[in-house]
């Protein structure tokens, strides 16, 4: 690192970002913290002139929620399952893509397509793929269509699995969510990692080729270390995002955050925050978001410690 002689310059360059962040990010955060400590705060109630006492009531209310542990469990589970899977997969795809000649540009372009695809279309295609149409819970069950995934599995003799419909199991739901989230996360990660790969000097690979180093070894010994800043970035930010999973669940299960008849089975912390906002409990929502903030911060601290040791700049 180099010491700058003109420290004021650093602040000058930073000023646009800092001013905007202060107004549109820091101020709302401060406001969030304020509301979290105003017991039973509700915006509409406040407008009608109600006053609120200072205290920890909102935090108590959050922890007392009968499905609080469910929300917490789903949040953590989805995060720890999807982040490693999507990162490793994206890395493999990016490296493979970078190693081929013909069709490379074409495939690279294809991988951008999700960005111009409407998000509603993405949710709908998933619903259609996993959805079983029929009276599965009647006796005997009646199935009109088992969905494309079950039809595909049927080729290998697998009985139709109830993925997301009424009466589906917790692990079936989690599986669908993991696939959906990984799928959603891939294009972004491929984009970032590919950008990183393209910055790596070809000489390293030429050296490895001459050396006769195996592909796996090249990947592990050269590519991963050289790409480590980008990998660290992807892992740290996707942990932050992973703990805030919400819209993907709405995409599959709708606002009920669970399969039909099992409302809230897939609910998460952010889902709980939305639910509280919906019920005009802004104070409670703020308290929940601070709890989530504490969790994310703890995980990020660990991540930063690890990356300090492993990342090569």
């Amino acid at each position, binding site marked *: 690192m180099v010491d700058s002689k003109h420290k004021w310059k650093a602040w000058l360059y930073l000023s646009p970002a800092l001013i905007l962040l202060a107004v549109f990010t820091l101020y*709302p955060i401060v406001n969030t913290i304020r509301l979290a400590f105003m017991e039973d705060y509700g915006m509409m109630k406040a407008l009608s002139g109600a006053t609120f006492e200072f205290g920890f009531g909102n935090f108590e209310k959050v922890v007392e929620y009968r499905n609080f542990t469910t929300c917490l469990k789903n949040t953590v589970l989805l995060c720890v399952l999807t982040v490693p899977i999507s990162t490793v997969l994206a890395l493999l795809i990016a490296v493979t893509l970078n190693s081929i000649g013909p069709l490379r540009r074409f495939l690279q372009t*294809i991988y951008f397509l*999700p960005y111009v695809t409407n998000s509603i279309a993405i949710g*709908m295609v998933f619903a259609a793929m996993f959805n079983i*149409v029929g009276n599965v819970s009647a006796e005997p069950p009646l199935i009109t269509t088992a969905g494309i995934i079950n039809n595909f599995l049927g080729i290998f003799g697998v009985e139709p699995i109830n993925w997301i419909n009424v009466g589906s199991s917790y692990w079936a739901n989690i599986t669908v969510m993991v696939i959906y989230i990984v799928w959603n996360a891939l294009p972004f990660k491929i*984009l970032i990692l590919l950008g990183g790969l393209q*910055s790596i000097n070809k000489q390293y690979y030429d050296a490895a080729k001459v050396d006769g180093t195996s592909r796996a070894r090249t990947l592990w010994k050269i590519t991963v270390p050289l790409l480590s800043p*980008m990998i660290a970035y992807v892992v740290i930010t996707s942990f932050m995002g992973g703990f805030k999973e919400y819209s993907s669940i709405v995409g599959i299960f709708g606002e009920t955050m669970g399969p039909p008849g099992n409302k809230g089975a897939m609910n998460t912390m952010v889902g709980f925050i939305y639910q509280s906002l919906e019920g005009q409990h802004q104070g409670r929502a703020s308290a929940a978001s601070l709890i989530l903030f504490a969790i994310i911060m703890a995980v990020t601290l660990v991540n930063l410690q690890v990356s300090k040791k492993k990342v090569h700049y």
Partner: protein
Amino acid sequence: MAENKKATVIMHERDIEKTSKLQVVNNVFGTFFRYLFLIIVAVVVLFPFYWMIISSLKTLAEYRLSVPTFWPKQVVWYNYVEAFTAANLGTLFKNTVIVGVVSTILSLVITVLTAFVFARLEFKGKNALFAMLLGTMMIPGELFTITNYETVFRLGWLNTYTVLIVPFLVSVFYVYLLRQSFMQIPDSLYLAAKVDGTSDLKYLWKVMIPLAMPTIISITILKMMGAWNSYMWPNLVARDADMQLITNGLRNAFTEATSGDTNFPVQMAAVALVSIPLFLVFIFFRKYIMKGVSRSGIKG
């Protein structure tokens, strides 16, 4: 550091010949599997896009069938006609392009400057400040909406381009990404530039930006797409018909007369109509920029 490890490699000619036959076989197999893998991924990625297109070609009745069809029984084009006439696509397109281009450019300038400071310059409290920026990413943003709405209301920004551009210009997400990229550029280059008397900004412009170009392009694409796809905020603060962005206009324009439900086939047609030109622009844009960038890489 991985540098210099492979600096000197001594190989015997015989060894190369022995391994080469094996390598050819390996390569053929390897290449086959690599392509297979990439093509499977491509198909998976393409599926929703395909779904969007076929949905736009279905009749509403077919779209509502309980057994979804994977190719329209009857291909209809009137959804496109309706999409073209129902929403004021001209205005929506213009607004989105203005907001998208201006916010991407401003955002890039701010992101580059900020990332440069965090990657290169040294001052007291830098790490704490950076940690704080990361911290802002950890609070769920859902709670910011109402406070920010109040702020822009007080500033009198409702229904202006300003309100669509300014509040989300800074993304810590991208600052962090670019900082990672900048930090890979060796200090030696910077010191050399200092000795030559090159100013910070000139160095940034002449050395760092070209070297980090792949990342900057990624950020440009992400920011552009973000502007294109943003919905919640514009919907809240820019309701006037002549200020609406494409996603807002499109999502709201196509409801069925009777039930008030969204008419999805028409909506999909509208989205396809506006995303295809966008996609073409990006292919072109990307190629053009990449041409001008030296591909020699950062390290070394």
